[in-house]
């Protein structure tokens, strides 16, 4: 990425801090950079407003293999005014991409749920785009638990 958008830079900063705290290797910040790249590509380098997007995740995931995730946007879904896409990235996975959900006015609600894989404790970032080109975002830290017995 040549020029970091403010939002992307923010996301990067936040996740960089998280990585430091949990003492993960440098590859994590590489993943965070790639996450920021993907977001910038999605937004066309524009800044997404931190509002309207909700991310539901367990506070502590019991394992990283099947983590329930729900994203929604509090915005109209009618006629030519609807949420068209939500990009979801995980900034600590080997590949940060998770999914892009695409909606239409027929969707009724800008909401999607799935189950995801998380390599470790990290941020989930969602960015939504409306049919009018508005951009909204949010992020949430999810802790992936650590087993007791080790290897």
């Amino acid at each position: 990425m040549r020029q970091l958008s403010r939002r992307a830079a923010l996301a990067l900063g936040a996740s960089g801090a998280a990585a430091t705290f949990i003492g993960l290797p440098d590859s994590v910040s590489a993943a965070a950079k790639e996450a920021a790249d993907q977001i910038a590509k999605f937004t066309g380098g524009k800044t997404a407003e931190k509002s309207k997007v909700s991310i539901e995740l367990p506070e502590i995931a019991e394992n990283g293999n099947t983590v329930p995730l729900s994203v929604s946007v509090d915005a109209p879904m009618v006629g030519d005014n609807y949420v068209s896409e939500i990009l979801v990235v995980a900034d600590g996975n080997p590949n940060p991409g998770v999914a892009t959900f695409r909606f239409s006015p027929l969707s009724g609600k800008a909401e999607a749920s799935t189950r995801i894989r998380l390599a470790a404790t990290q941020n989930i970032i969602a960015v939504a785009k409306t049919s009018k080109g508005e951009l909204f975002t949010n992020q949430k830290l999810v802790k992936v638990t650590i087993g007791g017995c080790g290897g």
Partner: protein
Amino acid sequence: MRLGGILAIGTAAVLLVAGAFVIAGGSGAGAQGNKKEAPLDTNGDASARPWKRYAGWPARDESKWNTLAQVASPSAPKAPRKLAGPITGDAAKGAELVADRNRGGSCLACHVMGPAGGANLPGNVGPDLSQIGSAGREDEYLFNYIYDPRVYNPETVMPPWGGHGVFNDQEISDMVAFLKTLKSPAAFKTELDDPEKRPAPVEKRENLDPIENPGMWAVDKAQDLWKQAGAAGKSCQSCHSDAKAEFKTWAASMPRWEPRLNKVLGVEEFVTRHARATTGANWLMETDDNRAMSVYLHFLANGTPIQIDTTSAESKAAIERGKELSNRKLGELNFACTDCHGKSANHWIRGQWLGEPKGQYDHFPTWRTSLLAIWDIRQRFQWCQVNIRADELPPDAKEYGDLELYLAAQNDGQKLSVPGIRH
């Protein structure tokens, strides 16, 4: 069958429940004698021999330690080791060692230890050691407490890290050097990292919804198997045309003492031996077909309170043996079942909650989201042992039968809800 469900207490219900199966079994060909017992192939083993550990499990040879079938571990030392002088250790190395998850899950599994491991989800089975460096403990005491804490506390659940050779003297000295640096209360990044404030997990998933729980797919699979003829040309269906009615409570009466085998018989081994004796199918324990049949037979009895025979002399003796086995220290880490699921129950072992025995049986076989597989209770027993560095037994081992019966007895009255869904 209905009566079995209504009568909540007493052996009458148990006998009736068991009897329902017996009569059903006898309605086909081959009813045996007056008792009409369900036919069982009593020859041979019900699981693979030689038993081979699962490929993805640690391949360590733990044959020199106690298992449920052998007593082999060295006995506890009587006195602490005398040290020549003060400890010289490398505190930085010690800080790494206490967080090393390759050797028994790390000290953080049980202790809060100040900044060690980033204070990331430590457990609280043992005391918070964040200020142990100001506690006025002698080096020799700290060294011996790690080396083999039984010299100070024979009842401890803590492994003899040095005595069993998990860490050498130098490594333990490094850990002691690190402990001596711990002089400030633990600081947690989030409340979730503090095991005293971390909320206990609550299982809320709809485990009987096939879109939530892939374990439910086994119910479909088993219904196909039910109609599939075995080598003897018969299927389950040949004798059990109305599975839903016939098995409405049966699984809740299992496991039970089986005189023909002289051991406790669980649903999974029953499936193997009964199918061999009737349809000719050879559904060995811990194979997909066996797991599917076990899920289905439990599923049919869902909602029925667990009610095993705890009154016959044979059952009582088996439960007593199971209780003794649950107190036996096993493996290199020297844990008894009751260390984690009794003495330390309702605590965190690192980020995992240690449950009490009650509630650890009614959902088996269960789907494991971390492994994308169905596990029956015997596989769960095996995994626990391999994890604490003990050799597991074959799933049809009589010791597992005793242990399963003891566990079921502690779950008396819990309603079956199978397949469960757990991490």
